[in-house]
Structures are given as C-alpha cells and as structure tokens.
C-alpha cells in the first residue's frame, strides 16, 4: 500500500462536535487506520476540547498541527472564526513521528537543538522531511531554524508555518498528540520510502531605497538608518497611526537581503513582517530575526504578482516530477488571503495552484503568521509567503513507478 490521505473539514461551532466530525469523516474516507493526523483550526474553538474530541475518535493516532488564521482544503480557504480541517494519512511506505518542545520564546535556540536531537535519535531512515509548526507570536523562528539546522547531521527538507490566532495577537496553539500547547513548536518527521518537493513564493515588490538595520537584538529591531524602526515604517502609513495594526502592516513589509547562493531563482529578499511595537522605544518585533547590519528594503504587496508568482511556483513544482503527488501541504501567509483578495481569496490565489497540481489531490493547509521553507538548501523563516509541499511515494527501482493510490 502506498501513501494515502483523506481530508475532512468542519465548521461546527461546538468544539467537541467539530473534533468528532473531523476524525470520523476523515477516517471513514480513509477506510483504514491512520498513521498520522494533521490538524489545523481557527482560534474560535476551545482548542483543548477540539483536540480531545479528535483523540476520542482517533485513539492513539499520532497528531500534530496548530491554530491558524484560516484553514485550506481543496474547497478553498476559510478564514472564519470556526473552521477546522484534518488530514488522515496512512502508509506502509512512509513513517511518521511527532514531537514538541515548549519554551520557544525563552530559548529558541534550545528548542531548535532539541528538535535536532530528536531527529538524530530517530535515524536517517526516518528522516525525509521535517514539518514544523512553531508559535507564531512568541519565539524567534530564525534562531530556532538556525539551531535546528546546525544540529542536523545532514541537510533535511524543512517546511511549515507558524501558528496564528485570527489576528488577535493574543495566544496561539500547537497540537502534539492529545496535547494543546502554546509558546511551543510541534513537529512531524516524515521518513521511509517517500520524497518531497517544496515550492515557495511571495509576490512582494521592493520600493524605495535600500536601508540598513543599524540597531537590533534578535527579532527586535530598534533602529533603521539610525532612526526608530517604527518611525521609518510609519512614514508609509496614512494618518500618523499610534499603533501597529494588522490591517496596516499587511500591505507593507520589509525585505531582508538574501545571501547570493540562496537568492538564485527566488529573488533578492526574504520577507519580514513586524508583529509587535514597543511604543517607548519605537522598536518593532519580528518573529524572524533582522540582524544588525542587515540590508533591507520596504516592500509593497501586489495582488497580481502574488497570484502570478504562486502559479509560477506551483507550475515549477508540478514539473519536477512526471506524476501527481500523493498529497499536498499548503502553508500560506495570513496576509495573502481575504485581507488582500477579499471574497475572491480562494479563486485568486488558492484554486489556481490546485488546478495546476491536481484538484483531486488530498490538500491541507492553513493561513500562518510565518512560513518555513528552504531556499538554496537552507530553511528560512518567511513572511507574506506561500509554501507548498508535495509528498511522493518513492519510485520503485524496477521502474514501475510509484504505487500511490493502489
């Protein structure tokens, strides 16, 4: 049996009912015991009740996922307060291990090292791809990724998204088996006879002069070109706002200049979005670091470019293999959904990619506060970006091809 997956969605506002619906529907569609549940849900739910209800139906099936600003399936994206999705995966060719580490804000480096140690402990055979779902508000994901990659014996495809909470910027949730955590990282290690392909794109356009981060500490940027970071950012906003709002910041971000080796085929910048403002110092907080001395440029979002670059990267992803993947995971920035496309979010930016890769494929994702994907072999933390991960059963050596869906 190859790798098979089924996807269920619930909009039921009763958390326990929604959880039971998800697990029951997905397992019924799968028709067999699942080896992994991937779960994403919006923040209206009582998260503990939701996960408990899934576990009630699914038993000890390993589970990972997180809260998101919205959820994504083949029926498009849903960014309402009550929407939850679950993918049940079963495979005799792939292995699935789940893990979590808490205290991300206090020690992102330690969290990265812990995950690396866990991966090393499982052995190379079980490590084909690592999915990460860190808290999107609390920790420095750039530090997390750096420590993680330093600790791995050899490069490993890493992808994922950071948890969201309906743009309330209060608290996000990470799911690991029956537990619901915050300020944590949930992780899934996929191994066995499978391969993955990832694609990443943003569609932002650099504007204005190149600037320099003149004072920063990890994710906290105090000064840009010698002025407070907030005063620089605010110059692009109307009506001299007193606070940083999602509605304002979603139209603007900073592009951090990439090293030449990683920029090839992608673009000069990786996006950086401020998630917090310190009124006293005028410092902006970025969940991905902006190191002192970094070259940055303001970027504006362009809906047409977002759409075109998403379709381009999906086309490139589809072209890498001569067959359809067994499943697709989709991590899309919260700022790339309804907030920019309105009612037409699915039609403009989601469905076109699904049409390129296959409308019948099991497809699961969520709208994240930050995205994780590799560029040039290195995993980066991104903002305003879409990451697609396609999983394939490894082709047999006798050339008969994959047996997905058998």
């Amino acid at each position, binding site marked *: 049996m190859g790798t098979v997956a089924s996807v269920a969605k*619930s*909009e*039921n*506002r*009763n958390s326990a*009912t*929604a959880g039971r619906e998800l697990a029951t529907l997905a397992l019924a569609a799968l028709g067999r015991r699942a080896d992994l549940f991937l779960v994403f849900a*919006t*923040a*209206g739910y*009582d998260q503990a009740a939701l996960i408990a209800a899934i576990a009630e139906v699914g038993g000890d099936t390993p589970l990972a996922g997180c809260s998101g*600003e*919205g959820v994504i399936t083949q029926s498009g994206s849903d*960014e*309402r*307060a*009550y929407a939850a999705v679950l993918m049940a995966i079963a495979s005799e060719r792939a292995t699935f291990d789940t893990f979590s580490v808490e205290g991300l804000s206090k020690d992102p480096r330690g969290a990265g090292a812990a995950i690396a140690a866990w991966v090393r402990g499982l052995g190379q055979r079980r490590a084909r791809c690592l999915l990460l779902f860190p808290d999107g508000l609390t920790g420095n994901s750039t530090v997390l990724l750096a420590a993680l990659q330093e600790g791995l014996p050899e490069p490993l495809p890493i992808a994922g998204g950071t948890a969201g909470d*309906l*743009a*309330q910027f209060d608290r996000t949730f990470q799911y690991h088996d029956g537990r619901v955590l915050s300020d944590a990282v949930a992780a899934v290690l996929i191994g066995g006879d499978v391969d993955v392909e990832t694609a990443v794109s943003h569609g932002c356009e650099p*504007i*204005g*002069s190149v600037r320099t981060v003149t004072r920063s500490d990890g994710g906290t940027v105090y000064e840009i070109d010698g002025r407070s970071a907030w005063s620089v950012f605010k*110059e*692009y*906003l*109307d009506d001299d706002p007193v606070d940083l709002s*999602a*509605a*304002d910041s979603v*139209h*603007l971000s900073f592009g951090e200049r990439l090293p030449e080796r990683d920029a090839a085929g992608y673009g000069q910048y990786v996006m950086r979005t401020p998630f917090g403002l310190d009124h006293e110092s005028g410092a902006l907080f970025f969940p991905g670091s902006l190191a002192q001395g970094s070259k940055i440029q*303001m970027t*504006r979002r362009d809906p047409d470019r977002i759409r075109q670059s998403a379709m381009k990267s999906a086309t490139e992803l589809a072209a890498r293999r001569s067959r359809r993947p067994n499943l697709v995971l989709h991590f899309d920035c*919260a700022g790339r*959904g*309804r*907030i*920019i496309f*309105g*009612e037409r979010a699915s039609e403009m930016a989601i469905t076109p990619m699904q049409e390129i890769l296959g409308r019948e494929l099991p497809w699961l994702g969520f709208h994240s506060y930050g995205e994780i994907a590799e560029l040039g072999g290195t995993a980066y933390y991104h903002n305003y970006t879409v990451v697609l991960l396609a999983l394939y059963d490894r082709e047999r050596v006798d050339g008969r091809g994959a047996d997905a869906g058998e």
Partner: protein
Amino acid sequence: MDEEPTRESDALNEQVKLLVKTERRLYGAQRVIEMQLHRLGALNTLAASANRAGDPDVILGLALQALVDVLDFDQAVALVPAKSAGARLAALRTQPGCEPCDRRWSGRAVELPIVDEPRLYMPRAATSDDDVAALLDAVNTYFAPRGRRGAARGVPAVELVVPLRRKSGMQLGLLVLRKIDVTVSLHETRISEADLPFVELVATRVEADVENVLLYRELEAFAAGLEQKVAERTAELARTNDALALSLRRVRETQAQLVEASKSAALLTLVAGLSHELNNPIGVILGYAQGLLSRAPNPATARQLSAIERQARRCSHLVRAMLGLAANPPMALDSIPPAVLLRSAVADAAHEAAERGVRIYVEALPDDLPSLFISEESLREALGQLVKNALDATASGGTVSLSARERRRNAVRGVELSVQDSGAGIPRAFLSRVFDPFFTTKPPGKGIGLGLSLVRRAVEAHGGRIEVRSDLGRGTTVRVWLPIAASELHPAEEPRLDAEGTR
C-alpha cells in the same frame, strides 16, 4: 556633488510613500465596495426569494438568513404574536453547532414588547430593566448559551432586536439575532451601529413581502367568504321554497280533508237521524214478526214470517252499526296479550273459513310480546272485521294468516298486528278510499262499506295506526299498530297514503 542624488532619492522616496498610501486607500475603498456589493447581493437574493415565497414564516426565515450571512450572527429567531397568547417561533436560523440544546420554544408566557427601531446590545447589561430583557432572556433560555470565553454569563456578546411592522403600524413580529462570543476573524463583521441601516433595509424588504402575502390572504379569505355567503343564501332560499311548497301541499291536503270531513260529518248526522227514525219501526216489525211466527197457522205462513223476522233482524243490525259509527262510546281498558286477540279472532272465524275452504291460522309469535292495554271488545270486533274482509276476499284454497310483532313508531313501543290474505287484492285506485265510510268493492248485499271505517275508528281511539298494503292478484295485508301502554296513547295521526298505496 553628493547632495543632488540624495535630494533626488529623497524626492523619489517621498513619491513612493505617497503612492503606497494612495494604494492603501484604494485597497480600503475596494474592501468597502466589496462589502457593499456583498450586502447588495444578499438583499437581491432576499428580494428574489421572498417575492416568490407565499408564507410569512418562510419570508421571515429568509430575512434571518440574510442577516446571519452578512453580519455573521450565530443564532437567529423570528417571533410573532401567537394566536392564543405569547409569542410563536416563526423561523429559526443557526450556525452549525449553535442549535438550541434540546429545548423547545415555550413562548406562551412571553409577550412581544413594542420596539420602535432596531436595537443593538453589545452586550446587554445584566441589570438592564429594558422591557425587551424578558424576551431576550426567554430566547437565551431557548438556546441554553454555552458561555464560552468572551460571553458574559448568561448573556451573549451581541444581541440585535429588529421590529417588523405592517403598513397599518401594527407590529408584525420581532427578529432576535445573537452572537455568542466576540471571537471573530479579521474578516468577519464586527457588528456596530453602522450596520443598522443595512438591518433596516432587510426589515423594510421583508415587511413589504409579508404585507403582500397577508393582503393577498385577506383578499382570498374575503372572496371565499363572499362565495360562502352566496352559497348559504342560495341554500336558504331553496329551503324556504321547499318549505313553501310543502306548506302549500299541506294546505291543499288539509282543505281536501276538511271538505271530506264536513261531508262525512253531514253524512253521519244524516245516518244517525235516519237510523234513529228506522230503529223503532224495525223494532216494531221485528216484534210483531216474532209474535206472529210463534202462532203461525201453517208452515207456509211460518216460512214467510221467518223471512220477515230474518230481514228485520238484518235491518236492526245495520241500524245498530250505523248508530255505532256516529256514536263515540267510552272504552273499558284491560291488559290483553296480543296472542289472545289473534287466537280468538281465528277461533271466531274458523267455522266460516272452513266453509269457504280457506286456511286460517296464527303465525308463530315471539315469546316476549308485551300485552296491550286496550278495550278488548272494541278491538275484537275490529280484528273480526279485518278477518271477515280477508275471508271475503280470499277464494277457496287460499290462506288468511294473523301475526304480531313488537315495533316502535316515533320512539313509542307498540305491537303491530297483521292480517294477511292471499286474495284478489285491492286495485291501486281504490286503496285511497278503503277507509271512507260506505266505500265497498263487495257486490250489493254483501256489505255497506262501514267495516274498515269502524276498524280505523277503533284503532285510532287507542292511539294506534292502520295501514293497508295490497298487491293486486296476490293479496292484501292490513297492519294495525297499537301502543302497548295507556300512558303511551297519543292522538291519532292523520292516515296518509304512501308511495306504495298503503294507508
């Protein structure tokens, strides 16, 4: 040298900032336009659906759906005044998972308050003494709120009350919409007073549609009422016509009976006078004939005197009969079993029947036949007359049978005595006259036509009724119905002809 590029760069940067701000405003305007288009679409959908709906409850449900869809409410009810008391739940809309928790709407005790315009509570104060509070509490109880975070205990985060009115100003009902908590996504409507004009638009739209449906129903009811009234009046007229025709017929019948009765009365007076005048001479003739007969000088004279005596006796008998018809003697009543009456009548006629070669008998009688409270002499004579008539009508070899059964007439218990013959029967044309005095079908000298007239008189004197049914060539049956108890005696009904020619 370096200042020029810097100034140029600064100017370009400023232009970029301006462009970004303008673009941001355009995005904002685009969102507003999209929102308005969304609302316009919802209103159009509502208008198209409500226009086709012929039921006010369905229209109210569509209004709820439009408000729930556009303003992201969790729960919504439409309440209208109940027929008896309180408020009826006319429509219900909920998001999945927000359904009422196994509770039924019990609105009998809830009166709909008069509300002037849409009211928004975000949230309602627990101490609110608003007259709407009782209604909202009832709705709260119906849904059994789950009290998630963001919701005050027992009170939803947002409540909206929308009044609906008829053109007359009468309140049609209230829409109550609820949002359980305030956890909404960036893209869901955070409802505010600014949304109330849209709510008013929805209300106005459905008010017009409900008004149309109700007016149409009222018109239909009026038209149906009109048709009903016409039908009722037509039926009433037909009944009056029938009654008039019946009255007219009765007047004619009564008139004819009056004429007959006056004729009979005059005849009876004449008969009574004549009989009285004849009685004495006949008595004298009879007396002398009997005296002379005892001293007859020879047999030839004796035969002649005997003939005179026989004929005089016959005349005397006729005269007594005629006097009996005119008189109305008092009756002595006794309790007599019907079987006694029938058997004695058969015994009295047995000799004559044997001579005529006619078989006469009493049919098997029910064991529980009640006794009759009657004048035995009067009814023995009457029954004897009926048996005599039957024997007269029946040729040799025929039968005359007598029977009795219990039978109710007009809820009065009684016994029906029947005398049935297998004789020649009575022609249909004569049936209506058989009870008339002096009507007879017998040849001259065989009777003067007083028999059935006297029988009827005797029966009616007992509160009974007599009927004759005859089948020409097959025989005749005379049925005499008598009430069983004296207390059940009632005035004689007027004998009537029925379709079969019975009386």
